[in-house]
């Protein structure tokens, strides 16, 4: 293999347990987003648009959907002779077989892979953020500063700062301190979980960390603090723009709603920074005479005869006449029959909602809760659902009928 200047390592093994039903069958990066995409499309498209052509995707938790989605990487132009996309699951060695024990360990276990390309820099990404970012600019910054490591940071509000890893940096943006979720944050530069390391430096650290039985093998908890301790050059690269961690149901729902705004902070229609995804091969969608669609995105292959407001509709969804969908996310190939009412819900793929049923969350402290229906849920006619439906859960005809 030819030497590469920069290789990206995408950490895609997380379970994303706070997403609950959405990640029961698939890893978090494979969760559908924005009417067409999966979460992993964003970092992979960023790689393509930033000119990075070699990406290792580290998988661990329920990788089937993710693996088959990535394929040979053609969707992101990553099917290359020299480089391309590589799916890297944990593997057994002569004496032991281990899972990835932490973010740093996942990279450590793939030192062979990185050595194959012998890059000057390694870009560490995670598969659970929605954002558009030119990694090349960050790499230029890293080079200009002559840094050992560069951490992408986002300015957050003071209230939010205590939920993040906070970087305290001087005027030159050199980081002198790192605090994980501080109670009294000294700055509001939050780590985005995106790092560029000079590979020889990181390689040495990983080898040492691998031998350290006390370490949690985590970039935030171990590698970064140790680098600070050793006085290595760490810089904070300020990112401006939309960035959303879709770690919880609430933030996942919000991020989906963010693309609906008239002047969205997050523009997915920019021809100069396309978000690539695997094409579903469906015809244009059809809106019938009785359809009424507002503030929504609708993807290919849908047939809409009802009302859709403030919602995200994935490919191949059928929405019958008289149905009313509001503030919701409808995953691919769901069948919504006539007169169904859906409010603030996430409907799993291939679910069937029979005539006249109603899905709407309860109000808790004047805020409506999000209802999630697992994939392939079947909701009988006229039933009212106000709580999430687990995979395989059978909904009784009469049980929840409105009194």
């Amino acid at each position, binding site marked *: 293999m030819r030497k590469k200047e920069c290789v990206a390592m995408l950490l895609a093994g997380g379970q994303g347990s706070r997403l609950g039903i959405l990640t029961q069958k698939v890893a978090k990066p494979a969760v559908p987003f924005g009417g067409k995409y999966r979460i992993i499309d964003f970092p992979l498209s960023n790689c393509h648009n930033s000119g990075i052509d070699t990406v290792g995707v580290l998988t661990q938790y329920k990788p089937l959907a993710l693996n088959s989605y990535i394929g040979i990487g053609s969707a992101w132009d990553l099917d290359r002779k020299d480089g391309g996309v590589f799916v890297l699951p944990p593997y057994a060695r002569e004496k032991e077989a281990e899972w990835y024990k932490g973010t740093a360990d996942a990279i450590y276990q793939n030192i062979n892979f990185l050595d194959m390309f012998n890059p000057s820099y390694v870009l560490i990404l995670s598969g659970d953020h929605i954002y558009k970012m030119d990694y090349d600019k960050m790499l230029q910054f890293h080079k200009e500063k002559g840094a050992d490591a560069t951490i992408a940071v986002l300015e957050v509000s003071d209230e939010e700062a205590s939920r993040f890893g906070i970087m305290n940096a001087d005027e030159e943006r050199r980081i002198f301190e790192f605090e994980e979720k501080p109670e009294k944050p000294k700055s509001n530069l939050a780590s985005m979980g995106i790092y560029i390391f000079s590979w020889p430096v990181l390689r040495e650290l990983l080898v040492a960390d691998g031998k350290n039985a006390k370490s949690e093998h985590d970039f935030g908890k171990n590698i970064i603090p140790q680098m600070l301790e050793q006085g290595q050059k760490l810089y904070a690269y300020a990112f401006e723009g939309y960035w959303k961690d879709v770690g919880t149901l609430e933030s996942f729902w919000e991020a989906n709603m963010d693309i609906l705004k008239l002047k969205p902070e997050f523009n997915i229609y920019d021809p100069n920074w396309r978000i690539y995804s695997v094409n579903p091969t469906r015809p244009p969608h059809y*809106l019938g005479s009785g359809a009424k669609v507002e503030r*929504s995105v609708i993807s290919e292959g849908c047939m809409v005869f009802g009302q859709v407001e403030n919602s995200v509709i994935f490919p191949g969804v059928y929405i019958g006449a008289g149905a009313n969908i509001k503030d919701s996310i409808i995953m691919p190939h769901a069948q919504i029959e006539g007169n169904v009412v859906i409010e603030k819900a996430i409907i799993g793929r291939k679910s069937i909602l029979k005539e006249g049923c109603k899905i709407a969350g309860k109000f808790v402290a004047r805020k409506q809760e999000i209802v999630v229906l697992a994939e392939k849920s079947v909701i009988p006619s006229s039933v009212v659902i106000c709580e999430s439906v687990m995979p395989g859960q059978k909904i009784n005809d009469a049980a929840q009928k409105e009194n």
Partner: protein
Amino acid sequence: MQNVMGIINLNGDEKLLKEITECRPLAAVPFGGRYRVIDFVLSSMVNSGIENVGILLHDKYRSIMDHLRSGKEWDLARKSDGLFILPSGQPRLPGSKLGDVDNLYHNLDYLENSRQQYVLLSGSSMVCNINYRKAFKYHQDSGADITILYKEMAENEGEQAEGMSLILDDTGRMLDMSFVSKTLGVKRMSMDMYILKRELLIEFVKECKSVGDTNLIRDGFYKNRDKLKIYGFQYKGYFANIHSLQSYYKHNMELLKVDKWQDLFMKAGLVYTKVKDEAPAKYQESAKVANTMVANGCIVGGRVENSILFRGVKVHKGAYIKDSIIMQKCEIAENAIVENVICDKDVQITAGKWLKGEKNYPLFVEKGTVV
């Protein structure tokens, strides 16, 4: 079907569609919101299990080559077989008549080197989604030399009947073929798709070439109809023959009927096309859209009725589109009104303009025009 190769002949008569085909062959004309006409026959072939397809180019072929590229979208980028681009030998001089015979003769090597025993030869003006397996089985069972696929047209569809009509006997054998145009009555319209042995096709091409004949169907097949066993195979699914601007308009609009939409796009198999990676279509607060087909990448803020929006169309607030076909990347500005209009790619209708055609005579706006 691995024993069948496909050839799509782009050497059609395009004079009736001159506006849209000025810059592209008929096969590359945008159709159905996100496709080009060729996608339907090509996808049908691939979905039927054909793995070797030759595209017989004529002229103006930049756009079709840009569309097909390696054939990857149709799963035809292969090590052996796959997609073959077959250009014509000579540049066509104005007024000269080069037929498909010359074109095929120039690519005789491809025909001779292919390993399939049969050829499915198709024209490029047909829109349908067809499983060729049945037709091929019929061809083998009937012992025909040539099988012609046809579609029965009812009386009220007479106006569609522009092309060759087959006269068959009770066994399905073709007795004669005649050109019909706007004739009423039930007709068996040739779909310009033929199944025959590869060897036989090569023979025809050589024979025609040797006596200076130019048209394979007329001079090869039709002249020898008494010597050959030519059978007709009836296809019953969705079928549209694009032969004029009116028929182009009509058949696009037809897809706004749910059963036709499903027939063409879903029934026999999926239809592949060049992927553009557009985001899902977005409807703004002011959008009011009914009975319309909308492709990805559109941003709609205005009112749209009975229309087709191709990929990446922008309809601003206050604009009104009715009974129209708006191709890729057009932009309809505030308070513009567009009715019975076909906008070719990249057209911009500026604010407040009012464009109106007639149902039977849609107004055509050329590619890239700013109105």
